């Protein structure tokens, strides 16, 4: 596409993305030099920047605005909210994300995306060379998971305020999946990870063409339950938990084998009567060991 006139539509934004779209007009981002201009009416534009989480009141407006954009209508969903409702997903007033209402050509992850990322996304649209901006040292980008270090414990998923991390057990495997579409880069997952396996990338996230491209994933094989054989836990999680138990209470080291064996039972088998009896016996032994010291 040659020459882009962009129209910004706010469908329920905190105006964070709005001001970063405005900031992208600063001279350093060279949008005017690339042939990108700003339209004040949708009818003058051939590109639409959608910002915000679509709510019950703006959904219809968004469709109307889209119709007014001049074909071939380039649509960019800017920021986590336009991408997937972001931090507001689950709210009663938030309707479907942008791409369920109108066709979307590109998504820019981020909460909000830096003007650097917005400018590079627009450069891509006009076939100009993206500047490849470098983020500062302590930048909070999207989380990246080290599959070698990750034990699949799910601490990250529990603390994530945006619900961007999913833990799925299927086909004998556990997947820990980071969805950049929802991620608000708060770094809470990085703080919560007991294995230091999650790090926020020090770079501005690039625009993507589909949601599938904006994920990072750790896939771990599941160990089988010692009793019924159902795959239920990644072995790394057990090792790590056992290690922390032994470090916390050194007196437990002598009972290491019994502790590890009791951990190898899946939730179902653990709640069977003989397992409960066994666990009680083990706990008595352990407290005896502590008192003996």
């Amino acid at each position, binding site marked *: 596409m040659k020459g882009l006139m962009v129209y910004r539509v*706010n469908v329920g934004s905190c105006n964070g993305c709005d001001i970063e779209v405005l900031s992208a007009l600063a001279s350093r981002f060279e949008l005017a030099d690339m042939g990108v201009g700003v339209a004040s009416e949708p009818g003058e534009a051939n590109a639409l920047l959608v910002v915000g989480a679509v709510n019950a009141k703006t959904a219809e407006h968004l469709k109307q605005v889209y119709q007014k954009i001049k074909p071939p209508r380039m649509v960019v969903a800017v920021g986590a909210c336009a991408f997937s409702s972001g931090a507001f997903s689950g709210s009663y007033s938030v309707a479907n994300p942008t791409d369920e209402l109108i066709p979307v050509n590109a998504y820019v992850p981020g909460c909000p995306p830096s003007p650097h990322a917005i400018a590079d996304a627009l450069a891509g649209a006009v076939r100009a060379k993206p500047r490849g901006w470098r983020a500062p040292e302590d930048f909070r980008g999207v989380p990246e998971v080290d599959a070698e270090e990750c034990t699949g414990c799910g601490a990250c998923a529990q603390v994530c305020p945006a619900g961007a991390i999913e833990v799925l057990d299927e086909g004998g495997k556990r997947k820990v999946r980071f969805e950049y579409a929802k991620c608000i880069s708060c770094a809470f997952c990085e703080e919560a990870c007991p294995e230091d396996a999650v790090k926020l990338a020090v770079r501005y996230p690039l625009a993507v063409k589909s949601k599938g491209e904006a994920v990072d994933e750790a896939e771990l094989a599941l160990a089988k339950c010692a009793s019924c054989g159902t795959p239920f836990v990644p072995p790394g999680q057990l090792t790590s938990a056992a290690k922390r138990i032994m470090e916390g209470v050194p007196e437990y080291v002598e009972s290491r084998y019994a502790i590890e064996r009791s951990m190898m039972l899946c939730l179902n088998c653990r709640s069977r009567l003989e397992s409960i009896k066994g666990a009680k016996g083990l706990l008595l032994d352990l407290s005896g060991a502590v008192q003996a010291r």
Partner: protein
Amino acid sequence: MPETIVIGPYHPALLEPELYEVVVEGKKIVDVSVEQGYTHRGIENLLSTKTYRQGVFICERICGLCSHAHSCCYCQVVEKIFDIEPPKRARYIRTAIFELDRLQSHYMWSALLFHTLRDEKLFIKLLDAREPLMDLIELICGNRVHYSINAIGGVRRDLTPAAAERVRQVLGQLEVTSGDILRALESHAPRLSGIGALSREGAAAAGVVGPVLRASGVESDIRKDDPYAAYEEVDFEVKVEGGCDVYARALVRARETYESMNIIRQLLDNLPAGEIGVEVGEPHVGEGISRVEAPRGELIYYVKSNGTNIPERVKLRPPTYMNEHAVAEMLRGEQLDDLPLILESLDRCISCTNRLAVVDARTGRKRSVRLVDLG
């Protein structure tokens, strides 16, 4: 014969979606009503489904321009509920970031004012001048808009000596920018003066807050009246103007930028050593309230705790909610051409304010409420 003009919800004169029904006689504005709800995201409800720690990040995302004010205010109430006090160093860092936030918000507002005045050269010049400040915030906090530096019990990142040095350099550049803004305002003074009047009495009656209130001659600033964070430990002036018009509001904001720089310098000079956070224990059953002076004025948070790690109720009152009550009074009797400038002078933040929708329980139909109907 009066006629009604509908402006919005999407209109070149509006940065954020809102619907204005303006009744005019010729070019003269007779009455105005505002319809909101276009950025309603159900935040108060959402906050009572997230843990206290997660809530900090949701509050921040209420508004992109005063995100630090929201997270600060929320953390302050929650700290009361947990009965903890952030260490002195954390309070100093919070305050310094608060003033950096005010600076970037006021500069963005100035840029938009000149955009409304169709002074595109100055608009871009101010956006350019704001960029070193945004880079600085990104350097310290890791993001330009949602800083995520606040945590319950303190701050999440320390201020390194190198970053503090960079702050001083940037403040030096910004002083030039503030001077440019004041000179440019002076040259636009004839256009800005005498429009959008809000008398001292009118301001009190509408209950406006922040720079809008101070431009109507009332000396009121939460940083002085009810000091929080480290404001009691710094010297600064509350800027007041008596003009009661668009020009006075512009002057208040422009002059406040110097005070923000003054506050930041004092904080850096006296930055105490020590920890930046404290252990968070368990929440008490009870309730708390806190207020801060956001860039747009007084922001209030109320939190009710039932002793679990999720708040039972979070209620907030953002500054724009109060300032919108004065819109009709400011616009009545003015010329239609002045409407964009008068609205701009309020520095409205719609994203904070759109938190009301009424649902008819019998039909399930949702409708929004106009401010005028609230009385």
